[in-house]
């Protein structure tokens, strides 16, 4: 009896801080976003406390003829964001998978060294690394200077401020996040499975497609989720490297809040981003559960 009461007291003391803190500074803000997304935009920014149902409509192109006319651009930007994020995941996968394989086959000391090398840039500032890409990709930047100097091209390549630059930047930023789960999956792969597959007559390619890929699938999915979610809502990379053609939904949200001062619309856009994130999370959890059932 006394033991239980003492236990409850200790437990309450341990849990109260996080409950209060996250409840107030995490849940409440999210609820406010949800609330604002259905309110009327104020004339000079802020909100008017009246229900306004067109915020979501505007995203998909409809207008209420009071504020704007039909503008499918928001939908385009949303689709572009999803596309960029998906492309980022794919490119990260293609880049990281072979390297993960290579590192996992190295002798132990080298393995530690290269793992350290991969995670090291993570510790240096994101904005610094993106700024560096600016220096590299500029028309007067290193890449062009080298290529022109070597004679490979005569005119500078216009990479900066194109969608390509945005994807490149995001891939660069996300590579460590994809690498670690992938490496973990590849490292845990039982070599005996590969040997068994070849023993039974499968070629290297077949072994890779039929044995290695399926076995490392959980790592692939995990990495994909960890990369996709921040990529969708990213606004730094498109802001630094993207220009007008690389605008993503994150930039849109930032604009609505800081320049256009249309908070309800910005909130609606945020809600869409949240919805995408939740869909991806739920999807990955369902996939994990199904895989778990298969392996049982």
């Amino acid at each position, binding site marked *: *009896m*006394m*033991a239980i009461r*003492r236990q409850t007291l200790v437990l309450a003391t341990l849990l109260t801080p996080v409950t209060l803190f996250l409840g107030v500074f995490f849940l409440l803000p999210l609820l406010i976003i949800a609330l604002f997304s259905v309110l009327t935009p104020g004339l000079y920014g802020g909100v008017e406390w009246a229900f306004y149902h067109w915020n979501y409509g505007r995203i998909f192109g409809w207008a209420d003829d009071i504020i704007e006319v039909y503008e499918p651009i928001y939908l385009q930007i949303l689709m572009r964001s999803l596309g960029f994020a998906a492309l980022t995941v794919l490119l990260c996968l293609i880049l990281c998978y072979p390297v993960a394989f290579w590192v996992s086959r190295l002798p132990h000391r080298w393995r530690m060294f290269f793992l350290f090398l991969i995670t090291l840039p993570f510790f240096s500032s994101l904005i610094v690394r993106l700024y560096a890409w600016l220096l590299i990709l500029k028309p007067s930047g290193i890449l062009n200077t080298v290529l022109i100097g070597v004679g490979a091209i005569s005119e500078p390549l216009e990479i900066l401020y194109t969608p390509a630059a945005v994807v490149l930047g995001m891939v660069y930023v996300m590579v460590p996040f994809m690498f670690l789960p992938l490496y973990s999956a590849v490292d845990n792969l039982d070599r005996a499975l590969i040997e068994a597959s070849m023993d039974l007559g499968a070629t290297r390619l077949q072994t890779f497609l039929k044995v290695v890929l399926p076995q490392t699938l959980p790592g692939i999915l995990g990495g994909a989720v960890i990369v996709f979610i921040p990529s969708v809502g990213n606004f730094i990379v498109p802001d630094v490297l993207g220009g007008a053609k690389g605008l993503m939904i994150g930039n849109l949200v930032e604009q609505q809040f800081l320049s256009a001062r249309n908070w309800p619309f910005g909130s609606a856009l945020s809600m869409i981003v949240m919805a995408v994130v939740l869909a991806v999370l739920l999807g990955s959890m369902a996939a994990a559960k199904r895989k778990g059932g298969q392996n049982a």
Partner: protein
Amino acid sequence: MALLEIRNARRDFVTPEGGKFAALDGIDLDIGAHEFVTLLGPSGCGKTTLLRSISGFETLDGGAILLDGTDLAALPPFRRPVNTVFQSYALFSHMTVARNVGYALEVRGEDRASRERAVAEALEKVGLTGMGARKPSQLSGGQRQRVALARAIIGKPRLLLLDEPLSALDRNLRQQMQIELKTLQNTLGIAFIFVTHDQEEALTMSDRIVVMRAGQIEQIGTPRAIYRHPKNRFVAEFIGETNLFALTIDRIEAGQAMARTAEGLELLLPAGAAKVGDKAVAVLRPADFTLSDQGIAATVTKAVYLGSDLHLFVQPAVGGAEIRVTARDSASAPKEGTKVHLAYDPAAPHVLEAA
């Protein structure tokens, strides 16, 4: 009044599938203040659950545990005058041996000087004088075991609980520690409750053995009583090697009963209250048989060499199960295929009370 009284202790567990089973199914037990009691049984019999109920890490669903008449249920583990030696020793790896051992006094707020004296004394009792400055990671398994022991006795508990403390040690070390534990218990004069699944250990160390199975007590008694007079088949087979004979009583004369197995093997039993035609199960230990020129006719099917002894499996001529016999090894010891005769002391067979 006994030091520890356990009255109808019950503890139920829910399986992952949702079924309920009783880890403790109505345990009644008294422990004296200076006794060495062993809880013996196969895995899952409830002996560890019972131990943890006494120390306070499990709560009973029914019944009570009384220490000196006080119900322990109201006391959380850190208030009970009971200490535990854990199976994994559970030494604090971030503390020195000295601090580990003195921990109970440290949390009571005793001053450093008296703590240091008590620690030195405790270390001496377990034979680890001078090891105070080391860390657990620098010690061998046997030494760690002693630290766990010293740590548990320094607070002068009324009762010490030991959860299979010797299971991680090799055979020689284990036998040595058995003797040391028994000596320590005598020196300290407190009660020890010892949990093990090793029946040899139980026989060696205990004042009394509590044989448990499936949450219930099968039999309580001194080692000799349990060994010589097991109550039922389970206890008979759990302790020591045994031969069981399913018999029917043929005739009774002069206080002895002549009984016979289905195959026709004949045994003389103490008559007791038996009547002709009764069925009985008799226990005869391998050491109860001797090889002679008269007795049960049998052929040796297997001879297992055990150092000083030979463990023989013999097939009775009339048929039936193999009988196990222990004989001293010598040049004339029988080999496989030899025909032998088994003799036994008529007082040796023990009839089981129950199946």
